[in-house]
Structures are given as C-alpha cells and as structure tokens.
C-alpha cells in the first residue's frame, strides 16, 4: 500500500475515524489500533515478513529488559551484542548476502581463482533498514543508561512499527517517540490541519515533482550513450529533483499522517538544496539517518576527539557506511566516499559548522557569497547523485566523462511533446515555494497565512489540481522503500 495510492487514503480515513471516535477514550485501545493497523499496512506489502518484524520487535524488547536487569556490565554487554548481532545478521543476510558473495568471487577471480558464487534470490523485506535501526538505537540507549527499558510490549511495538514511519522512516528514537506513544493523545485542530497540509505538500513533491522527473531521468540514464553532455547533465538534474521530491515527499506524508494521530515524528529534511556547503547539506538531508550515524557510530568511534587524523578516519567511515546502508552496490559506497571527500576540506579548515542557520535569513534574496555557496554545493551534489543513480561505477564514470566533454555545449535533447519543459517549469515552481518557506518546518507550513482564507484554500486546491493534471498515472513506488 503506497502513500500515493487510493487504498492508502481509504485506509487512513478509516483508521483516523476509529482512532478519534471509537478508541479515543482509552490509550490502550488507541495503541492497539495503531499496532493492528500498522501490521495490516505492512502485510499489504508482504505478509510473510510480518514474522520477521514481530521477531525483531520481540528480540529488542526482550534484550532491552535483559540489559537493564543484568547485574553486571559483562552480562549487559552480552545481551547488547546478541541484539546487535541478530539484528545486523538479518539485515546483512537479506540486504547484503549476494553482494558479499559476488564481491568475494570477483576478488578471487582477480587472483586467478575462479569460484562459482552461491547466490540466493533473496527478497528484501520492505523497511528492514529502518526498523532495524529503531531497535538498535533502543537497546544501545538502554545499555548506555540513556533510557529505561519499556515494559509495555504494545507501546514498544507501536514505537517500532507505527505505520507512517515503518517502511521508510524517519528513523525514530525511543527518547522521542515512546513518551508520545505512552501519553494520552487529544485531538488538536491546528495539529491535524497542519498534518493535512504537510501530506498535500508531500504528495505534490512525490507525484508531481519526483515522478515526472523520474520519467526523464530514467530515459536519459538508461540510454546515456545516446545523449550529449548537456542532456546528461539535464538527466542528472532530473534525478537530483526526483530523489529529493521522492524521499522528502515521503517524509512529509509520514510526518503529516502521524500528526493526524497526535504524534510528532522527527524532521527528516530541511531544504537541503539551499545549503551553502556540503556539511550543511548533510545536516539538512535525511537528518534522522545522519543523526543516527553520528550518535551510534561516529561518537563511539571517537568522534571529533583525538585530532584531525581520527576525525578524517571517522568521517570517511560514517560516509562509507551510510552509502552502504543505501544499498549493496559499489556505486553507493563510492557515493558515500565522494561525499566524505567533499566534506574533507571543510573538516580540515574547521569550517564544517560555519553555516548553521538558514541561507538569506530574513531576506528574500541571498547575497553573492551565499549564492556561490548554494550553487557550488548544489552542483557537487548533482555530480554525486550520478553515482547513486548509475547501475555501475563504470557507467557512472562514462556518464560524467561525457558531461565534461565538448558536447556539454550542445543544446540538450528535448522530446517532441516537450514534457521536459513542463517538468522543469514544475521544478522551478516547486523550488520557488521551497525557497519562500525555507525558514519553516516545511515549505507551505505558513505560506499564505496573511492572505484571506478563501485565497489560501484556493492555493491548496490548485495544488490538488496540479496533482491531478501532472501526476504519473501508474502508481510508482518510493525510491527509499528499497533501502
């Protein structure tokens, strides 16, 4: 069941009414409803993996209690490693088994030894990377005494499997979400309206921006040898907006949906394409994952302590692991490493925290320095996305080589129906609205609040019309579901 499908909206309306009209008197019933609906939502993808989700939930709940109750540090550590080992074991098997076995065979072939790799046709359970990280953060936080273990299994299960975040995040923390799950929720008009507004903006990003850009990006990336450098750059631009519209659109729908149930989720995106340097970009892109790696990998590795050498090593580790988290392919690893390279000058010059606010804060236009920073960061990001999108490193390098050839100065290819121009116009409109709303939680959060209500509502209605007129007509899954 996709967020951009009719089935999801029917499901959402049904659960919303049951939640606020039938189970509203009892927190226990509300949580039970959220749990059952979340499991139903997940079963719509593939019911067989419900057992894996339930097992992972039960494992972390149990090991969390064991860690907290263990009298000695040694025992606590043992339970922690049992949880980490099993969780990462499942993740490794489902997501990385074939990658490792094929890479091993390739490495052996380089040494002149030919082995037939025993690959399995493994189906990747939807959302495994996300709910595994939920569970891991929970047990690690208990181990370090940051939180007390949860004793209510239903509440804990809702924390792991709450349907808006179940399949593609944001990656929640027990410290943030569990207290909300355990507290009685009351319907709040402003929160619910805000949720609907964010859902609308998320849908616009997904079905209008991402899906239209995907159509052109796919055509160009799949036939990249037929295109000039300028067209390839256009293809990379389309993918840049596709992935942003897709993933941040998903996050907006998730956050908005959760808000309809009186729950606030962690912010996942904060206008990353207006970043003035790559460090700022990574504070604004997939925030919940970046923070997860910072707290559970970078800091335990020593973080910023221990001199520049250690910082550089740790930075490379988290970027490469982050790349690998996205998928079992060398392209993702290279993409992560390339971002670490981008990050390096800022780190060495101690400038990685020089842009902490919002670009052009309190002004409409950025100054020249900001404009330069935003443009260069954006172009670096576009080039890095080529590795993320390409099927192999060889293809990615060939793609980039053509961009940096003389053919970059040719007119880019535009199809007869000029669909690219419409998509670019939609992207321009989208980025304008994003720029206007860059100081808010999401672009249209306060847009038009000074206008008369009918005018503001008409703007929302126009967005709905844009969905209907420019959406792709076949349902397309969100990119991040594969991770």
């Amino acid at each position: 069941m996709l967020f951009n499908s009719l089935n999801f909206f029917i499901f959402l309306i049904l659960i919303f009414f049951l939640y606020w009209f039938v189970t509203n008197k009892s927190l226990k019933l509300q949580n039970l409803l959220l749990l059952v609906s979340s499991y139903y939502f997940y079963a719509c993808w593939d019911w067989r993996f419900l057992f894996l989700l339930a097992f992972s939930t039960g494992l972390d709940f149990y090991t969390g209690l064991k860690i907290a109750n263990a009298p000695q540090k040694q025992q606590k550590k043992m339970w922690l490693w049992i949880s980490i080992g099993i969780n990462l074991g499942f993740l490794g098997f489902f997501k990385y088994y074939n990658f490792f076995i094929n890479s091993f065979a390739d490495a052996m072939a380089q040494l002149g030894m030919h082995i037939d790799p025993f690959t399995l046709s493994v189906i990747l359970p939807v959302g495994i990377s996300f709910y595994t990280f939920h569970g891991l953060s929970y047990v690690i936080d208990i181990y370090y005494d940051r939180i007390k273990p949860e004793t209510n299994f239903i509440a804990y299960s809702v924390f792991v499997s709450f349907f808006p975040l179940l399949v593609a995040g944001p990656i929640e923390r027990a410290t943030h979400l569990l207290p909300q799950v355990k507290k009685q929720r009351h319907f709040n008009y402003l929160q619910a309206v805000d949720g609907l507004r964010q859902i609308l903006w998320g849908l616009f990003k997904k079905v209008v921006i991402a899906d239209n850009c995907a159509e052109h990006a796919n055509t160009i990336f799949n036939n990249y040898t037929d295109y000039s450098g300028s067209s390839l750059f256009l293809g990379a631009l389309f993918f840049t907006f596709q992935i942003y519209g897709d993933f941040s659109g998903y996050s907006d729908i998730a956050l908005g949906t959760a808000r309809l149930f009186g729950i606030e989720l962690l912010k996942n995106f904060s206008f990353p394409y207006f970043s003035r340097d790559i460090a700022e970009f990574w504070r604004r892109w997939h925030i919940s994952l970046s923070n997860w790696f910072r707290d559970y990998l970078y800091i335990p590795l020593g973080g910023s302590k221990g001199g520049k050498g250690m910082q550089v090593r740790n930075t490379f580790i988290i970027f490469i692991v982050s790349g690998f988290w996205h998928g079992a392919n060398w392209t993702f690893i290279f993409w992560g490493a390339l971002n670490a390279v981008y990050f390096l000058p800022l780190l060495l010059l101690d400038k990685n925290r020089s842009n902490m606010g919002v670009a052009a804060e309190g002004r409409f236009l950025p100054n020249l320095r900001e404009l330069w920073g935003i443009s260069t960061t954006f172009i670096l990001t576009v080039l890095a996305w080529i590795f993320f999108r390409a099927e192999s490193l060889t293809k990615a390098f060939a793609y980039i080589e053509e961009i940096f050839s003389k053919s970059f100065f040719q007119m880019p290819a535009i199809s007869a129906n000029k669909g690219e121009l419409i998509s670019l116009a939609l992207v321009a409109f989208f980025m304008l609205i994003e720029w206007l709303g860059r100081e808010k939680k999401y672009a249209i959060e306060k847009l038009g609040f000074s206008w008369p209500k009918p005018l503001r509502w008409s703007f929302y209605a126009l967005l709905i019309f844009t969905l209907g007129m420019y959406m792709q007509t076949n349902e397309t899954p969100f990119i991040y579901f594969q991770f």
Partner: protein
Amino acid sequence: MRKFLKAILLFIPLSIAIYILMVIIIGNLNIGTLQKNLKYFVGAYGHTNTRIKEVRKNKAVDILFVGSSHAYRGFDTRLFEQGGYHCFNLGSNRQSPIQTELLLARYLNKLNPKVLVYEVCPIAFSTDGVESTCDIISNDVVDFGALKMAIKQNNIKIYNTLIYSYYRQLLHRDANFTEQIVKDDDTYISGGFVEKKIKYYTQEKIEGNNKAALNDLQKESFEAIVAMTKAYGIKLLLIQSPVTKATFNAYVNNDYFDHKMQQYGTYYNFNKMIELNDSLDFFDGHHLNQNGVVKFNKAIIEKVLPN
C-alpha cells in the same frame, strides 16, 4: 474535531469547483504540453467521431463488427454488403472489452444484429484501456454509462477527460464539428470501415517474448459482453485478425490465448487459417492493407458466415 470536520466539508466543494474550473481552462487552452492528464481526442485517429455520428442514424443490421483498429481496418463493410450482409463496423482506436461493453450497451439494441463479430486480439485484453476510453468519451455522449466506465478504470486521465467532455457537451461546443473523411492515407467508408491507401510493409525486427494475458477488468467486461449477446439471442463470432508472422510469433503463448477464447464461444484465429504475404498484404505489423482485407473478408464470407 467538529471544527476540523466543518473545515473539511467546506474545503472539499471548493477544491472540486476549482479543479473542474482548471480542467476546463487547461482544456480550452488546447496546448498539448500542458495537458498531461487530459486526453480529449475529438476527431482524432480512427474516425471515431464520424463512426459514432453514423451509428446513431443507422438501423438494424445483419452483422455488427466490434474491436480495435484490427476491426475498423480489417472488416470492409462494402465487401460484406456485396456478399448480401447488411452490416456496421463499430470498431474504434485501441478498443478493448471495457469500451466495447459500453458501446454495445448503447447501440446493440438499436442495431439489433443477427451476428456480432468480435475481433479479439491479445493486446486488447492486456491493455489498461485508458486511451481508448478517452477516445470514446471525447467522441460519444457523456452519460451515466461513461461515468461507470470511468469509475471502473479509476484513472485520473479518464476523470479529467470526462469532466472536460461533459463541459463541452453541456455547452454544445462540438455541435458543429465535422471530421474530415480523408486523413492522410486513411479514408472513412460509410458503414465504419477505414480504408488505407494501399501501402506495403517492410518487416521490422520484433522482440519475441510477448505474453498474451487477460487483464481482470477486461475479462470482466468481456464476460459481460458474452452474457449480453446470449441475453439478446445474438450469435457471437470471436475472430482474431491476421497480423504479420513476426508480430504473431512475437507472442510466446498464442495457444493459451486461443484456448481461452474457445471457452467463450465460436472462435477463429485467422493467423492459422489463411496464408498471407507479410510484405504485400499488410501496411504495418498489425494491419492489413486493402489487398489483405479483401482476402481476409472473402475467407470470412466463405468459411465462417455460412456456418
């Protein structure tokens, strides 16, 4: 909560009104690139507009032909008239069972044929039928049947086209529209057939791994059509028109499709019944030229209709 529900109830009609207004504006601007999900095809490919106008005036026939372009380009009504059969060809562009069901519901009673010849090709059964529905909605009346068909397919392109076509129908915007009888190499022949000025076909390479499949919605409509013909006591002949050998062989499960069709009634697959030349009897991989049409229709008159 009451305030929330009240706001929703006010917002829904406002957004519907703005949506309809914007569809009409975009439709009237008539700039193809702006109309991504609006497919208003009045007088477009396939002469559907002329055919629908003619069928409204037509009286009872002996044979009614339905189906996709294979039908309106494959059954030459003049040849059947010469053979003594009064007939009409109600084929339309990419017509699939979903649209055939609607057209028969509208015109079967009026035409009251003795025989319904249904051209069944595998593509028509696997397609989503969106383009064809937009074609029918644009060129025929928008009524409850059209709305039912739109809901059945549940596609935004169809809804947008339905809104725009209904607006044009209400304001009689196409009342004076007359379609050209001759368009490029195509000539509309009274009775619904479209004759292609003879062209010859140079075989192109076709990938040979297509699979015929029956889409659930198409199957449901097809079964409704079969039931309708039974209810009216009309003889149903299912005919698969010949295509070039390469096109036919590109399907890896032709026998499966034949078997499926045989379950529904009297079925003839002319790809296996007559010998045609791919270059001389076709103008593309799917359609017969007039040489091929003559051979094909003669074979139907001689081999099928007497039974």
